[in-house]
């Protein structure tokens, strides 16, 4: 089994106000079958043993479904693979002797809390601005009581796969949250329960997205390339259609 020797350059920052900097670390004998986060765990064990502060990073499920983890790896959100979260990235995608630069998501709306951990509550506030259905929609409806065309159901479900990891913002050259916001608007608006509040929702969520300090979407599509759930930028066009429709009302 190949063993890797790695040179890491990791962003260290004590608190939101502190000036951060990159610190170099060396790791050797890294099994290439471990995950990227397990590699960071090994580094932290060594740091703790030598009495140093471990590198703080977010993770939870470690199976690519919770949206907690996410760092910039050599300039790419969630690393070099498409449709992959950081926790699902394995060391076999790196070579012996590689230098790996690890940075937090960079966005005014995502302030660094410590090291690689950023505060993504701006996303929660966008949801709170309108990403819900206000009426009680009751329990699971009877099968076939609400007929929804398959393509519409698929589109809503594709948008609902968003795990809110923030890679779209991190990868966007403008730090725009348009892919996230559009996905959260569309997964509700396309379905009967979410449709009545569709216009109100798009206005409120877009305005909140702006207030949080995210950038503009300039249709570059880096968000789509970084999205671990491969949410298409078609959903951003859908958000704009909803917006134009809402303007007309």
């Amino acid at each position: 089994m190949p063993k890797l020797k790695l040179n890491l350059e990791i962003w260290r920052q004590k608190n939101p106000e502190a000036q951060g900097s990159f610190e170099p670390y060396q790791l050797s004998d890294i099994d290439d079958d471990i995950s990227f986060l397990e590699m960071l765990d090994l580094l932290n064990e060594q740091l703790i043993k030598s009495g140093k502060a471990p590198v703080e990073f977010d993770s939870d499920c470690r199976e690519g479904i919770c949206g907690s983890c996410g760092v910039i790896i050599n300039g790419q959100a969630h690393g070099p693979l498409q449709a992959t979260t950081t926790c699902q990235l394995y060391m076999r995608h790196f070579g012996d002797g590689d230098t790996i630069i690890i940075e937090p998501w960079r966005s005014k709306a995502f302030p660094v809390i410590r090291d690689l951990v950023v505060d993504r509550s701006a996303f929660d506030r966008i949801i709170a601005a309108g990403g819900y259905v206000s009426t009680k929609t009751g329990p699971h409806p009877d099968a076939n009581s609400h007929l929804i065309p398959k393509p519409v159901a698929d589109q809503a479900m594709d948008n609902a796969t968003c795990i809110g990891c923030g890679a779209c913002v991190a990868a966007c050259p403008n730090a725009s949250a348009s892919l996230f916001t559009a996905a959260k608007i569309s997964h509700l608006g396309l379905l009967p329960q979410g449709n009545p509040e569709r216009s109100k929702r798009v206005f409120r969520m877009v305005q909140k997205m702006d207030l949080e300090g995210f950038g503009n979407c300039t249709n570059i599509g880096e968000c789509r390339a970084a999205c671990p759930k491969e949410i298409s930028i078609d959903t951003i066009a859908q958000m704009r259609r909803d917006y134009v429709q809402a303007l007309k009302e």
Partner: protein
Amino acid sequence: MSYPQVKSFTTVFKKLLIALSGLGLVGFVVVHLLGNLTLLRSDGAAFNAYAAKLESFGPLLAVAEIGLLAIFLIHIVTVLTTKKRNLDARPVAYRQWRSKGGDTPSNLSSRNMAVSGSLILLFLGIHIWQFRFGPGMSQGYIATQGQEQIRDLYRLVVETLKNPVMFLFYSVVMILLGLHLRHGIWSALQSLGMTRSRTTTPLRLLGAILGVLLGVGFLIIPAWIYFGASI
């Protein structure tokens, strides 16, 4: 209009303005190119006649010019405010940033719209100063059309573009225009929400082809004059 407090000048609304004004400018660029193709007729009579015809519209031309100026201003001012927001949105730059590629519109064109746009704006100032407000009949640029005397704009264009510096400047900016439109046309449709999952890829391709064609079309003119035309 039931949500007046939230119908403010949002980023999505601004992108609608940028897209609509951008498409308006694309329309202008198409007409301008078609008119300017008369420069390829080497005696210059066709181009001078075209220019004189435009001049003869008088007040109507002034209205069109003011309208065009307004479209330009909407495009530029709105873009500047969005650019400011984008710069503010990432106060700490990445030490390293690499495109993740894939099937996305991320390319040199789309990531450098501000650079190409700014240089086109600089060009525009020089271009208008050179020709719209450049020397006319009173400075001796006189051609004859039948019995009439008209401005010899053709000679001015040829003299200007025979200058190697101007030829190079015009050529570079026309390449930038092609790159700007390569992303711009499709991007405008995307900003207006006119693309759908089935149409987005073909529209992206068509927009890019049209953009590059317009750039190439405009590139032919300075090259034709620099290497070929004589007065």
